């Protein structure tokens, strides 16, 4: 197969609903630093795609540039992938979805890739509501260029060699909420259980699902004084909810006991259940979400879970009133008007 090398060993011979094994969702071997948070996310993406029985041929993986943006090579080799240029994944993904609206997009970016060089494209992508999962693997630094601060670094956070960041961070979740994104979550790469559920829900969601996943850089930002290190995040993480995923094919499936949980329809027949933990936070309230994010920032708390969710809205191809078939394969009989049309225009101009 072009593009892929060997797959990591498959966990079992089990197959999912479309007859694929876990190893059919594998990618080539990761070349990231051992222990990098990004690899944990890659593993959970493989799990989620397998669990959901996503058809690899219907998925495209898009990324920018950075350690995080390399990770599409490490999962789902049977899916097309485009590792583009720094900060421009949103536009490239937009073009791909216009060419073929039937493709599900998994976009992987970094905090530098999205919050620094690519902030403009990120902002505009949020307005378009592509059918995509947009993941920022957020480590507060530029891993690939050796540890400079990114725009998500917290105020007062220390760099590996002592520099302190004095500027306010950009909260990508708050920005996404503000820009009308209908599925916004903050996750921690070390929280396997929450990631597995949230990733499935995000993949099932029709429209843009934005996931800001704190993903420590073990090489450049895992020291004392960093607010994006494994130990710091483990200490400060406060989960907002227990997240459950109820797939469309199995409406009886419940991971947790029914209680005072909230149900959210994801647009493809599946549902997400949210059981609040120790607060009465309502993630369907956009203003409340922004308030909660502002407060948690002041209290230096790291809240994980679903920040904001709403029923899915028309996606970009729907907004543009495009035909259902992919534009990429429309026949010439459709894309070239007849001779009468040219004659009509010529007559008008003569």
């Amino acid at each position, binding site marked *: 197969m*072009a593009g892929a090398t060997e797959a990591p060993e498959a966990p079992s011979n089990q197959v999912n609903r479309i007859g694929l094994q876990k190893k059919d969702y594998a990618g080539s071997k990761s070349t990231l630093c051992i222990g990098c948070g990004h690899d944990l996310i890659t593993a959970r993406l493989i799990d989620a795609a397998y669990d959901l029985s996503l058809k690899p041929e219907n998925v495209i993986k898009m990324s920018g540039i950075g350690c995080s943006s390399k990770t599409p090579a490490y999962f789902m080799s049977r899916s097309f992938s*485009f590792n583009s*240029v720094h900060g421009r994944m949103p536009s*490239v993904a937009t073009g*791909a*979805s216009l*060419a073929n609206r039937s493709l599900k997009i998994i976009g992987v970016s970094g905090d530098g890739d999205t919050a620094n060089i690519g902030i403009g494209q990120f902002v505009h992508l949020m307005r378009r509501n592509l059918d995509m999962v947009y993941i920022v693997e957020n480590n507060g630094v530029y891993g690939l260029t050796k540890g400079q601060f990114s725009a998500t670094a917290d105020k007062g956070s220390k760099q590996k060699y002592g520099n302190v960041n004095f500027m306010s961070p950009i909260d990508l979740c708050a920005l996404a909420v503000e820009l009308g994104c209908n599925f916004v979550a903050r996750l921690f790469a070390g929280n396997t259980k929450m990631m597995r559920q949230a990733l499935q829900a995000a993949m099932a969601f029709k429209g843009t699902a934005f996931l800001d996943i704190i993903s420590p850089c073990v090489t450049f930002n895992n020291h004392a004084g960093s607010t994006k290190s494994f130990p710091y995040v483990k200490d400060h993480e406060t989960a907002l909810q227990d997240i459950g995923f109820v797939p469309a094919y199995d409406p009886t499936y419940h991971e947790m006991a029914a209680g005072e949980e909230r149900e959210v329809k994801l647009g493809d027949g599946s549902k997400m259940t949210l059981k609040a933990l120790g607060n009465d936070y309502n993630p369907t309230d956009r203003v409340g979400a922004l308030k909660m994010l502002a407060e948690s920032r002041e209290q230096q708390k790291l809240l994980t879970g679903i920040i904001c969710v709403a029923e899915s809205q028309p996606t970009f191809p729907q907004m543009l009133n495009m*035909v259902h078939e992919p534009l990429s394969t429309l026949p010439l009989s459709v*894309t*070239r008007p007849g001779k009468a049309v040219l004659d009509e225009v010529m007559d008008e101009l003569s």
Partner: protein
Amino acid sequence: MGTAATADAVGTIVNDFSIHVATANGSGSQTSNMVLLRALFQMGVPVSGKNLFPSNIQGLPTWFTIRASKDGWIARKEESDVIVCMNAETAEEDVATARKGAVLIYDDSLRLQEKRPDCVHYPVPFKKLIAECCPDLKLRKLVINMLYVGVCSALFGIDMGELKSALGKQLAGKQKAIDLNLPALEYSANWTKEHLPKKDAFRVERMNANEGKIIIEGNAATALGLMFGGVTVVTWYPITPSSSLCEYLDEYLNRFRLDKDGKRTFAVVQAEDEISAVGMLAGAGWAGARCFTSTSGPGISLMNEIIGLGYFAEIPFVICDVARTGPSTGLPTRTMQGDIYSLMYASHGDTKHIVLIPSEPKESFELAQEALDIAEEFQTPVFLMLDLDLGMNYWMAKRFDYPAAPIHRGKVLTKEQLQEMGGKWGRYQDVDGDGVPYRTIPGTEHPAAAYFTRGTGHTAQATYSEKPEHWKSNMDRLAKKFESAKKRVPKPVVTSDGSKVGLLFCGTTTEAINEAVHELKHKHKVKVDLCRVRAFPFTSEVEDFVDHHERVYVVELNRDGQLRMALSAEVPRLAHKLRSILHYDGMPLSAGAVVKQFRELEGAWGKGTPE
């Protein structure tokens, strides 16, 4: 060229003059100018219309020059024969630059008689006339410009019936506007007949030179070419002089490319900037759409990184650069062939791009379709190079031909082909020896269809590699692909008159050069051969042309001789034969400028005393 007009009495010049109209931007002058242009066109007289407008929405001076030429010359003429001053602010200046004997039409409140006693004067009481024919005070400023059309009609014999039909066409569907303009047109024509005795030599007579012709801007022509070329994804960010291209395209697509349920068989997206516009093309071209964006120089500068990605990851898309005067923001509403070099070699590292260069609307229509094909055949970004003069001015052109051939989508492997091949293929493998690999389109339902696209080093199998041999062989294959393109891109148009001296050029300089060559031949008894380049890479015919001439003048609209530089760089052995004729004040080229520079240079160089 049209047949010569009727021979006329001595002192009468028939169908051979230019009208220069000075108005204020945003005063509705465009309708009047177009009505005059169209009426002349409908009378069968060859015409062209060039707009000289400010980078401003309202109030600043604007000029429109209509040239009627029985011989079919439609290039810019430096000196105007008739000057219409509808803008009091610029009147003195407009009149000061008039040639001796020019006809001046102006508001009688301006005292211009003393200023230019050597010209023919037609003072017209415009304010009085508009008050008499347009009762509504508020509407007067919208129709006052129509008065000059009526004056011209009476003075030069421009048929009122044709003017009326031109007005109907120009304001099609806007009956109120027609009803408002018509009285002004007729009233001023009648007033002129009664009050202004004819003192000048210019006259219009019916001809039959415009059979099978249309009037169109290059941007509209390109848009039509793209639609008939099956474009599906269009992205853009507004910038003069390219905006109207995507606006026309959007209009045409919405009119002619909806399916039976009214759904769009295309997407037009106004992006947040040019980086995003071209980024969308990278995604769309990769995912199999025939895609397009248009921009101008500043946008090209922004797009550079992704153009390189397109070149290296081998993604088809088409960018039309409607060039304006640069560097920097420059003169946004003036013309230049200023991006020749920056298109040919756009982006960092070793890059070279296919550039197609139309010179008039019909060719724009055809090359737009070619560009979409060539981009997919060669899996690479392709540029269409226009300039403001072609894009935004009104050109007479032959009616366009309906495309005879189906579109070409290049080397795309289908699911079935992959099955036959047992899924064994390499995205960047040179299977056919032409440097062009095979690709698959995302969504192809075969487990081996997918590959990993990246702008980083890769092997023929599309896997990541930093190995020197992989890098080099890939770059060599890309060079070979570019070489193969030489056989595919449009050849130059060569015209031979048996001369040892040649002119080499591209795009919108063509009309002025043709006219200049005619003048050189008939007035100065000098013959020159012509080579109009239509594409980069330069095909062998371009080399042959230079080889077969003793000296070749490269004529272009920029300071640095970019076309000449490119030809010298690509074929160094030709460099010593090339000299530049340059024009770079933001205005289109005129025949006079070519003749002047050519004769000066020939005087020095042609006599064996090269510079």
